């Protein structure tokens, strides 16, 4: 059987007003970022529940990135501050459980920062590629569910 080379499959939760628009902009500017990322649009980075990250890893996704507006610029005033706090807490849990830091990342990207969004995704995917496929946390029972 032909062994297809493993490609990381990562999920990005991008906030609608800044990061998602930034990714859109990089697209219209024809800047390339890896196809490995699947973007899920959310209204605000504050919408992200830590469960999303865990469920994603459970489902075999190799990495998760959450991206929001720059501090002070949140479209909803304070959502990204709450996201940052939640992220700080869940980071400790993930470390404890043994999930490599390269797998779960957090970034601030503004709507005008097309090149930065492409760069962030690029670097993230490379980071995940380095730590290899997510075998430890994939819930095998979920296969085919």
């Amino acid at each position, binding site marked *: 059987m032909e062994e297809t080379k493993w490609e990381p499959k990562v999920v990005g939760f991008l906030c609608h007003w800044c990061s998602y628009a930034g990714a859109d902009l990089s697209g219209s500017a024809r800047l390339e970022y890896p196809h490995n990322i*699947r973007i899920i649009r959310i*209204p605000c980075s504050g919408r992200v*529940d830590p469960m999303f990250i865990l469920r*994603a890893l459970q489902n075999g*996704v190799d990495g998760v990135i959450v991206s929001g507006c720059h501090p002070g610029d949140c*479209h909803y*005033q304070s959502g990204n501050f709450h996201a940052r706090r939640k992220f700080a807490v869940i980071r400790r849990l993930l470390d404890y459980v043994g999930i490599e830091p390269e797998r779960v990342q957090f970034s601030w990207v503004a709507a005008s920062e097309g090149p930065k969004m492409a760069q962030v995704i690029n670097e993230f995917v490379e980071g995940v590629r380095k730590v290899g496929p997510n075998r430890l946390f994939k819930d095998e029972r979920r296969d085919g569910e």
Partner: protein
Amino acid sequence: MVESSQNENIEILTYSEVEEVGGYIGNFDVKIRKKARFVDIDKCTGCGTCYQKCPVKVPSEFDMEMGMRKAIYVPFPQAVPNVPVIDKEHCRMFTKGKCSICQKLCQADAVDYEQKDEIIEDRFGAIVVATGYDLFDASVYGEYGGGRFKDVITGLQLERLISPAGPTGGHIKRPSDGKEPKNVVFIQCVGSRDIEKGVPYCSNVCCMYTAKQAVLLKEHLPEVQTNIFYMDIRSAGKNYEQFVQRTMEQYGALYIRGRVSKIYQRGDKLIVKGADTLVGIQVEVEADMVVLATGITPRHDSKNLAGILSIPYDQFGFFTELHPKLAPIETVTSGIFLTGACQAPKDIPDTVASASGAAAKVASLFSSDEMSMEPLVSTIDTAVCSMCKACVEVCPYGAIQEEEITLRDGTKKKQLIVLESVCHGCGACVSTCRSSCIMLRGMTDEQIFDELMAVAQ
């Protein structure tokens, strides 16, 4: 102002304070205290006999303490309504229990020392905040005399001297001896652009009002020489730059780029020591009068008002707009709008523009009985909600409120609801809720998990 007072759709409540605001857009419950002025508005004819005959004189706040008013007074001749108010702190009737000259002389029987404050509680659809500014207190600049020199005055004080209705009848006279000044120095940026004094911002209006005052001084006193010490001239408005050039060319104003380091009194003159940085020398001017272009600060009680309205303010006390570029008139609280200098220092054309904007927004809000909104708002499953209120703390808009409902058996129950007209749909509440009883329509946890599943295949 008179036009507004005669419009049947406008009710002007003067000498009143907003004490409490509850509710939300379209339904603000406001408590107003109409303070007792001790004169019956309906009876008073505005004849003015009372304040003509009142024996007590008090420094006039409107004349920036350069003139006097009486204990019963109208702040300025064009005041609306043209009904006087009694200053309790200085009126002899209130402080000593004797006098009552105004009551005896009033032919309309309008003076009423027993008048009480009146509380008005009503529901309003929108609130426009236009509370204006306070002037920076220049006495903190000890090097400019700290308020001790009589002939060192502020720009607003000069306005009163120039005004024909002012304390000197429009004649420019030195406060110390009443003589006409021959050499006047203006100092820009007193209480603006000064981090050390806690005011790093530019007050916007001073460069232009100083130029205007230099022009008016020259028109009143053709022999006067004006000297203006500046850092930069900010004349960005329409025709403003041409106005400043005319001030220099036609009205002979001498603009000196540099700060003033010290003012001291020598005899009846003021010696102003500064620098001319464009030439690179120290400058000493012997002036008859010095005018400090004092800066704009938020009103001293602005933080208090912000608390009552539940709107945010910045580190100085200016009220915070929803977005500095894209929404300078709205606040995070839907239905509360800002206009004028309470939001940021601004001049008359900009204030009129922002006021028109606020009026337009209110008009469009009121143009129909129902508001249409984005449906992607949060909603609470009250059966599961334990009222821990963690969601209330993270909501930036105050959209989650308590309400009391009556059950079918007549008992009352408190519960939390999301005000759909206030919710902006950010979802911070959803990720905070411990019991997953609040959900964001269109972006529920289940919907996101489904997306995740699809992506992970």
